[in-house]
């Protein structure tokens, strides 16, 4: 258990080092330290994996790849000084997550993530970043950090993080407790949960919604419908998700529709009003100086 | 009209006339006249109540009835009057017209508000004295704060806002604790088996039933309830450590405000102690009584000394009324009929004499626009009539025999002296020194202001001089008309106090009966109710020497003191 706490602490420290700040940014050291902690953690956790992983073992390799990719790019998103790069790193995170989902045999979701999330949402982000921060210019080397900060008077806010220590600390404690919760079954009555993969798969196959749907339709005496359904037990992931979505979560679907409509109308209303520039009461320079 | 209608009329009448004031045209004359008529009408009703009051059995609550409010919780506006509350109501209704008459020249703006709030204040005061339901009492007790807060805040002197705020918050926090104590008692009543006494076991706020429930409490509970009651009433009485709000409130209040504050409002505290602390928590009163007595005595000396060094004449009188009420509390906690009788009489006397003193000072303030003694002197030379009244009321407040102050003071000291089981000779002796100090500071003030070479310097830098200069004309007929009834009252109570004392004998007996049965019998089982009348055990503590002598007489014919 304490390995988890140690790891999250080290992770936090590394992240803290990578945080953007004025003057010298020890970003490389932070990255190195972070990678090492992650690697070390995985090594420790690896030997706890049951040997008889069965069919999944190959897929599990992907987990390491995609997780490392996701976590690495996530740290870059958080710590990068330029918002545009942060957005791009986030695209990488999305892709990594899609990979993970694939490892979890949720193909439809993976593809949906890539298309909807990566494609649509992040594109809008990049678009807005471009729109809103064209006044920010990069720091050319011969300028000293202070001049750069001064030059970036009103956009210097990217160069500085707000109370990094407190944020990281809070994050780590939260992480520690989450991990604590996640790995508890490890030590708890492990035997109780010892179902092997096969049992899971077979159990899964028999309980699939289609089969249940078929049984229900059969119960209603529509033999022909039932047989179609029964034959469809070998449905693909996308079909299963679709069935499950409409079969057991109709309300959720409707709400999702409503939310999307509301956000659509909201976005239109917000963007419509002409808004004059209100002078900032105290310029961000004081804010900057104030820290 | 129907007997029990009288009291609610007495409470509602000032409210109605206060409201009617608002409808009048805003000219000063009409409002003043109306206010006077209103207060005189209330006086008339109270005199009617006095006539209809059956003096033979003055202990029972007469003309009692109740207007239902929240039946579920037993909340009702119960009212009724016994001898003690009757005299205090009479003090209020007598003082009010005089105050209104006295304030004609001092109030120059916002007449409606002034007289309106004054009438509301009167209604609240009368309400407090006639209430037999705890919540009704508490509502009126609290409601007296609002009008006075506004009177001081709007019509006061330079620091009026601070004074008003302090006055309100100080008294209010105190009475919050009292409310807690009261609620505890009411709750405790619901926990009692309903067979214990009539009214037990259910939510009721009737004072008589709560006497029973409070007395059934254990000693510890009673101590806590007493402390709660004390915190509210001690602030109102200004018992020694919690008196700092009074001098501030008095110096900043307008004349009529401070007359009513000194005349009646301070009595709410002592009346509260008398009506609640003594009968409700007898066991705690017996144990804590000596300490409260010690506080009262300390207060008497402490404030008397302070009076001596005061420069502001109104602050001097304010501190002196703290010292006087120390006597009142001392007498009350002597727990014998001489002491308690003396303290009730003291309440009425203090109301008359200190009220009159404040009126005199107010008249001087109207003329000299300053209250500092150093800026005025030898007024007897130019204002002889005022000087006569001033010396007369000073002598009354110092406790000169033949005037009312003496009877109250002497009886309280006598009561404290004889109550060897609770207080004792030491208390009376030290409080007696307070009498000397009283003479010292009053004569110091009289020597500076009334006698000595003539000095009329008018307002100093500190005082707000509203333009016109110093007037040194003597009292006009109106002002004499205000002061003379008070003077006659002082003389009457000085020479014929039996008119009051005889009627108080029975109610006092009722109030000190529980504490007396503890002191004498000592047998006070927990939960044993008091309604078993313990027969008058021959007290050995009283009159030891007399006892030895009486053996020689055939004692059955001797009046047992």
């Amino acid at each position: 258990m304490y390995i988890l706490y140690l790891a999250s602490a080290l992770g936090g420290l590394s992240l803290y080092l990578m945080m953007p700040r004025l003057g010298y940014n020890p970003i490389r050291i932070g990255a190195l330290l972070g990678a090492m902690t992650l690697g070390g953690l995985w090594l420790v956790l690896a030997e706890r994996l049951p040997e008889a992983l069965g069919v999944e073992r190959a897929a599990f390799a992907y987990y390491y790849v995609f997780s490392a990719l996701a976590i690495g790019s996530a740290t870059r998103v958080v710590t990068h000084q330029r918002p545009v790069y942060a957005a791009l790193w986030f695209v990488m995170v999305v892709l990594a997550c899609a990979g993970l989902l694939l490892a979890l045999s949720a193909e439809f979701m993976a593809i949906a993530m890539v298309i909807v999330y990566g494609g649509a949402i992040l594109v809008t982000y990049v678009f807005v970043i471009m729109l809103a921060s064209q006044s920010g210019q990069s720091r050319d080397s011969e300028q000293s950090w202070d001049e750069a900060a001064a030059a970036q008077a009103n956009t210097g806010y990217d160069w500085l993080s707000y109370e990094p220590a407190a944020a990281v600390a809070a994050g780590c404690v939260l992480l520690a407790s989450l991990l604590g919760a996640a790995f508890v079954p490890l030590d708890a009555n492990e035997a109780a949960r010892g179902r092997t993969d096969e049992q899971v798969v077979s159990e899964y196959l028999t309980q699939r919604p289609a089969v249940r749907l078929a049984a229900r339709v059969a119960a209603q005496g529509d033999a022909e419908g039932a047989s179609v359904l029964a034959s469809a037990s070998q449905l693909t992931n996308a079909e299963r998700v679709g069935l499950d979505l409409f079969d057991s979560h109709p309300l959720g679907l409707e709400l999702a529709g409503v939310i999307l409509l509301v956000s659509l109308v909201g976005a239109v209303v917000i963007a419509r009003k002409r808004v004059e520039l209100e002078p900032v009461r105290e310029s961000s320079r004081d804010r900057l100086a104030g820290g | 009209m129907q007997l029990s209608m009288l009291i609610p009329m007495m409470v509602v009448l000032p409210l109605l006339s206060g409201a009617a004031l608002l409808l009048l045209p805003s000219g000063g004359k009409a409002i003043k006249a109306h206010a006077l008529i209103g207060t005189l009408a209330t006086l008339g009703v109270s005199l009617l109540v006095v006539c209809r009051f059956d003096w033979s059995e003055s202990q029972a609550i007469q003309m009692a009835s109740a207007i239902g409010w929240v039946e579920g919780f037993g909340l009702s506006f119960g009212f009724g009057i016994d001898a003690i509350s009757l005299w205090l109501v009479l003090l209020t209704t007598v003082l009010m017209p005089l105050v209104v008459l006295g304030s004609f020249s001092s109030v120059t703006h916002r007449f409606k508000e002034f007289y309106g709030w004054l009438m509301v204040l009167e209604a609240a005061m009368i309400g407090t004295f006639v209430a037999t339901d705890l919540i009704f009492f508490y509502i009126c007790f609290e409601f007296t704060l609002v009008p006075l807060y506004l009177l001081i805040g709007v019509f006061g002197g330079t620091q009026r806002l601070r004074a008003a705020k302090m006055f309100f918050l100080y008294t209010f926090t105190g009475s919050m604790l009292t409310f807690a104590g009261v609620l505890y008692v009411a709750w405790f009543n619901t926990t009692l088996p309903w067979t214990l006494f009539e009214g037990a076991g259910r939510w009721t706020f009737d004072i008589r039933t709560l006497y029973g429930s409070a007395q059934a409490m254990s000693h510890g509970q009673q101590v806590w309830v007493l402390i709660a009651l004390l915190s509210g009433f001690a602030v109102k009485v200004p018992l020694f450590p919690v008196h700092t709000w009074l001098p501030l409130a008095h110096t900043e209040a307008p004349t009529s405000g401070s007359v009513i504050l000194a005349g009646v409002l301070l009595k709410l505290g002592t009346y509260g102690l008398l009506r609640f602390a003594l009968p409700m928590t007898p066991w705690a009163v017996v144990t804590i009584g000596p300490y409260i007595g010690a506080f009262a005595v300390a207060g008497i000396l402490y404030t008397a000394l302070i009076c001596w060094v005061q420069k502001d004449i109104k602050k001097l009188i304010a501190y002196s009324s703290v010292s006087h009420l120390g006597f009142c509390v001392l007498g009350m906690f002597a727990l014998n009929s001489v002491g308690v009788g003396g303290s009730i009489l003291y309440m009425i006397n203090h109301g008359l004499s200190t009220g009159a003193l404040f009126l005199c000072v107010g008249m001087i303030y109207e003329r000299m626009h300053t209250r500092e003694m150093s800026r005025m002197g030898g007024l007897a030379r130019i204002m002889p009539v005022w000087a006569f009244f001033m010396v007369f009321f000073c002598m009354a407040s110092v406790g000169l025999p033949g005037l009312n102050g003496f009877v109250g003071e002497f009886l309280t000291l006598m009561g404290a002296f004889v109550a060897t089981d609770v207080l004792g000779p030491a208390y009376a002796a030290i409080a007696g020194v307070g009498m000397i100090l009283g003479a010292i500071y009053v004569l110091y003030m009289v020597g500076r202001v009334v006698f000595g070479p003539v000095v009329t310097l008018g307002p100093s830098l500190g005082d707000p001089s509203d333009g016109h200069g110093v007037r040194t004309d003597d009292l006009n007929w109106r002002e004499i008309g205000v002061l003379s009834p008070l003077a006659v009252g002082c003389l009457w109570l000085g020479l014929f106090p039996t008119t009051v004392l005889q009627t108080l004998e029975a109610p006092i007996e009722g109030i000190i009966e529980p504490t007396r049965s503890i002191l004498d019998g000592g047998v006070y089982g927990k939960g044993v109710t008091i309604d078993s009348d313990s027969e008058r055990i021959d007290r050995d503590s009283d009159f030891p020497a007399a006892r030895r002598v009486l053996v020689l007489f055939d004692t059955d014919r001797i009046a047992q003191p």
Partner: protein
Amino acid sequence: MSIEFAKWVPWLPAAAAVFCGLCCTNRRMRTLAAPVCIVSLVSGFLITLGVKGQIGGELSDAGTRLQVFEWIRIGGLNADFAYYLDTLTVLMLLVVTGVGSLVAIYAAGYMAGDRGYARFFAAVSLFIFAMTTLVMADNLVLLYLGWEGVGLCSYLLIGYYYQKPSAVAAAKKAFIVNRIGDLGFALGIMLIYHQFGTVHFSTFTADGVVYPGLFEHCSRLTLAQVETPVLVIPFLLMLGAFGKSAQLPLYVWLPDAMEGPTPVSALIHAATMVTAGVYMIARLLPVFELSPYALPTVAVVGGATALFAATIALRQHDIKRVFAYSTVSQLGYMFLGVGVLSTVGGVFHLFTHAFFKALLFLTAGSVMHGLAGQLDMRKMSGLRTKMPVTCWLMFVGCLALAGFPFTAGFFSKDMILAAAMDRGLTGQGTMYTVLGIAGLFTALLTAYYTFRVWFRVFMGPTEYEMGEEHAAVEDTPTDGNEADPSADTSIDDGNIKVEHHHDAHEMGWLMNGPLVVLAVGALLAGWLGHADSSGHSWLLSVIEGSSANPTRMVEAAAGHAEAHTMLLGMELHTAMMVISSCLSVLGILVAAYLHWFNRPAADRLAEQWSGSARVLENKYFVDEAMDAVIVKPLRMMGYLCFVFDRLVIEGLVLAVGWVPRIGGLAVRRTQRGALQGYGIGMAVGVAVVAVLIAMVR
């Protein structure tokens, strides 16, 4: 005349007081005040004379009780307005109303033309009301009413010239010192009530119930049964008596009381008020007899005061101050008399002293009146040519005071000293002999300082300085800035005959008449008390008939006194008479030598003893000491308390007020408006909760 009339004696002056009070309001009625007051006093005197017959006669021991109305009745304590009349009361009433009316008549002349004329007589008649109530009171509370009422009137009358700050201060001092004494008296009353359950003297039955009086209790209580609290009672009462009669610890107010007009000093501070203490002890003798140590203490204090005051009087230069100290010392004699159980001697001396001391004061008043307010002896001499009548009247007074043989003072003083020596020699304690000798020495001093005044003022070359006051009109604008808007004073000068003599002049007969009566009294009063052949004087019968009859102690001492003690070969009484007359003559001769024939010798003597002379002149610095030891510290404590009150108690309250405010400030810092600050707050919250859940599970 039925005894019921006695009820009116106090209420007539009360009515007069009210009338004079009303007279104050307008000027025309002002002159009416004096006659009304005098009439009320004289009628009181006549009523007492009329009633005297009844009282002396039918009831031998207990006095009659006259109920006027119920005053205070509550819980066992009943103090009614009731009068207790016995021979002692009648004697006192005679003194009070008699001397009172004489002084009032004198004052009518003396105060003529004064602005506060009506106020003066209102206060005098109120005083007589209080004094008569005091003397006739049946219960201690009513006596206390008279006691403090008298204190009030002395305050008003001493402070009569209220424009003078010294008079105001003197009045305040008198009232406060009296109040200190009254506290002791009040505590005594309370202790009596606590021990005996009653405060009234006589036993009376009201609607079938018997209320046993105080005397009843005392008479039945044997010495053995007396517990300690009862022993304390006399000492408390003594405190009250000494306060009122200006004895040693509390005498400081009497010399300052001379600030008041002279008739006041004569009436109140010589004849009536100051004797209230003696009357009280005489009245409450049964209580005093209960404790063996009480009366000896009274005697010792009396003797000490007599000696102490006499020494101070030697070097005083103000005539009225000399007589004031002589009054203190004569009062010491009276207490000595009562202390040595010869209440007869004490009361007799009180009776005679009233006459000659009033005479002396009034004559001094005439001198002052004549010399426009001049009172300093050194600035006047040889006035016999200017004011012969006053001179010889004062001579008679001085003789009586000095105890010249066969004058009133001689008999009464001799009776006291004889009693003291008698108890001393019959072996009841050498203390009494010491007191007797001290008394004799004081008699010598008294003779000396009385005639020092007389010779200094009336004998020798007639040169004198007029005082600065215009004696006639008290309030002519003396200081410029006195804003005196009331125009009436100007009319005042016009209509009242004011003879602006700029020279010493003899008084009119309105003033000298009463003086002659007093002079006759001073001479003949002695014979009333002198035991004629049967050893039974009028005065003895008065004392036997009253509660002041020392029954118990005398019986206890009776065992010793059968054989007549012998002194210097003669029977004790005659011996004492011889000794005291020699002493008084010696005193007079010494005074004559030093202050008439050879004044420089007196001055030389003063230089030699300059140290002690200065001490005596400044009254042993008692006033300064009293001020420094008591007044200053008390006032300092007052300031301390006031500062304490404002800073600490009020501070505490305000501090409580500040707690929420400070708390608010602390919390406010967290709300800095930074969005992310709140974010972190939330995150930390979630983290903590998560940790707690983890720990709990």
